[in-house]
């Protein structure tokens, strides 16, 4: 984070970014707890450590824009303003959930906010992002699509088919690779022959800021703003590679045998929330009391989400047959 002598934005804006990141962090911690208590099933992929990317990038969007993401998408959903209650209820598999409990953690949707899905097939959201861009261009509605995916997805053929088509047709899509250095237990250097993912962009003639610091919410915000702008002006797609780290395992089932504790420690110290907090303190935008108030506020939202989810019923069995066809 650049050392600044004075704030670049309103204090409220700083607070808002911090609040969002904190909300995601606490939400995920609570989700982990609920998983351990058997309230949540399936896979649960926590976003802890990567909050700056969701919050920074999504803040650059307008309400009409689209988002698609992978299965590690709670952070994106919350940053987009999806109701924590409904998200938690979805993780609980309840009728009050975003998909009425049919989708689960990996398949969050909120059509009213252009949040068009978490996708559990690695790489599977990328062609769809291209299509959203294509549709927007065809309909002339000036919507931009922001597409999240991991470093592991880069090795799927669909990654390339998508980049090529988006570039070829000059579509309003922002590809944002959350490079946390691992796909499940495999470090990127064991699965990707290259050194830098973003270097594909120029081969497709695609705009790219290169690799950015995904732990710096401002850097992510700025890069995404430029990319969205670029897209909105009809100049086509952008590829952003944001370096980050997931503090937890791949999913709750991860035995976590493949990473060094020192490596984890190092990254934790670079964490997005700690950095933002320090930064704000340095700028005199945050004091201990404010931080405590913020934590309390966020904790309350999360607890409310859990209470709501817990109180929500499971769909009746005959609703199983609904939503197969529109």
């Amino acid at each position, binding site marked *: 984070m650049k050392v600044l002598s004075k704030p670049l934005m309103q204090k409220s804006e700083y607070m808002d970014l911090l609040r969002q990141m904190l909300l995601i962090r606490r939400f995920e911690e609570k989700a982990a707890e609920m998983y351990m208590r058997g309230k949540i099933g399936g896979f649960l992929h926590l976003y802890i450590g990567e909050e700056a990317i969701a919050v920074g990038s999504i803040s650059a969007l307008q309400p009409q824009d689209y988002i698609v993401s992978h299965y590690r998408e709670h952070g994106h959903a919350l940053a987009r303003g999806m109701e924590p209650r409904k998200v938690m209820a979805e993780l609980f598999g309840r009728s009050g959930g975003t998909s009425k409990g049919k989708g689960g953690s990996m398949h969050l*949707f909120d059509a009213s906010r252009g949040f068009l899905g978490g996708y559990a097939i690695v790489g599977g959201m990328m*062609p769809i992002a291209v299509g959203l861009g294509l549709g927007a261009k065809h309909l002339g509605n000036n919507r931009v699509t922001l597409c999240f995916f991991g470093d592991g997805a880069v090795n799927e053929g669909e990654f390339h088919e998508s980049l090529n*088509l988006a570039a070829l047709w000059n579509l309003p899509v922002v590809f944002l690779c959350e490079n946390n250095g691992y796909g499940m237990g495999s470090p990127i250097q064991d699965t990707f022959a290259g050194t830098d993912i973003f270097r594909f962009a120029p081969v497709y003639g695609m705009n790219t800021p290169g690799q950015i610091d995904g732990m710096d919410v401002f850097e992510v915000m700025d890069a995404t703003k430029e990319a969205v702008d670029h897209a909105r002006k009809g100049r086509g797609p952008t590829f952003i590679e944001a370096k980050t780290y997931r503090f937890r395992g791949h999913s709750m089932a991860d035995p976590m045998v493949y990473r060094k504790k020192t490596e984890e420690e190092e990254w934790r110290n670079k964490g997005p929330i700690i950095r933002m907090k320090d930064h704000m303190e340095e700028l005199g935008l945050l004091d201990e009391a404010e931080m405590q108030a913020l934590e309390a506020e966020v904790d309350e939202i999360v607890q409310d989400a859990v209470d709501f989810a817990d109180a929500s019923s499971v769909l009746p069995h005959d609703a199983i047959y609904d939503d197969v066809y529109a």
Partner: protein
Amino acid sequence: MASITYRKAISRVLKETLDNDPRSFMMGEDIGTYEGAYAVTRGFLDKYGPERIKDTPISESVIVGAGIGAAMGGARPIVELMTINFSLLAIDQIVNSAAKLHYMSGGQVTVPLVIRTVSGGGNQLAASHSQSLEGWYAHVPGLFVVAPSTPSDAMGLFRTAYRDPNTVMFIEHSLLYGAKGEVNDDPDFTIPFGKADVKREGEDVTIITYSRMAHVSLGAAKRLSEEGIEAEVVDLRSLRPMDTEAIVESVKKTSRAVVVEEGWKPMGIGAEVSARIMENALEYLDAPVQRVASLDVPMPYARPLEQAVMPDEDRVIEAVHRLF
């Protein structure tokens, strides 16, 4: 009522769609400059321009995925996969996205997408280019699958497919493009999904079939008639949903049934039809339902071998004979 080819019928209904709905556009490999591998889109690029007739890279997965995304976003893409064999490179998008997004989103999003593709053998294109895999798509809840055998059915089913808010696999057959038939001029003539069509009435045996095999079956029925056996030919047209009622009704009348499909037998359309008859009309049967399908081998290239692999009138007749 005019008589036109299957190719012309599809071409016409596509144009009608492009003319009437500005949200619609087509995308696929070589549908523009090359005018379509089977010449269905001849003249389209000139008429509608490259923004609506989109030649794509050879990238089946993103072709379908982009169709899904565009459809979710309110456009009305019509995607062409050159043949059903190549659809295997896009099958993840079809099965894991198109078929499931409505469900996984709890009904929030829809994918009104038509995927046109070409099935079947008979062109000496050998093993990897001669498959009839439509049964796989019909296995999957969330998709609709239709496979018209005539120009009229193609037009009626296409309109239904296009107007439907779900993803529809629209299965054409390369050997049918030249086949002629009467078509209804009413631009609102549609055929509902899940309605089979009795292409020939008969009292003695029911032949259940679809796509090109409907023609083979009709040929066989004609020859059977000469020997005094009147076959009823039920053209399924729609593979998901499948018209159990029509099948059962006919079998109740004839007490005998043969299913004719171009694909492989195991876990095929014939198996499904046979199982449905088992479940719904067992007591009416005078003989076990017979299945006629391609031989259980990859398709050989040599013409005489290829012809021997696919069902023909002789094999249908033979199967009917086994019932008496």
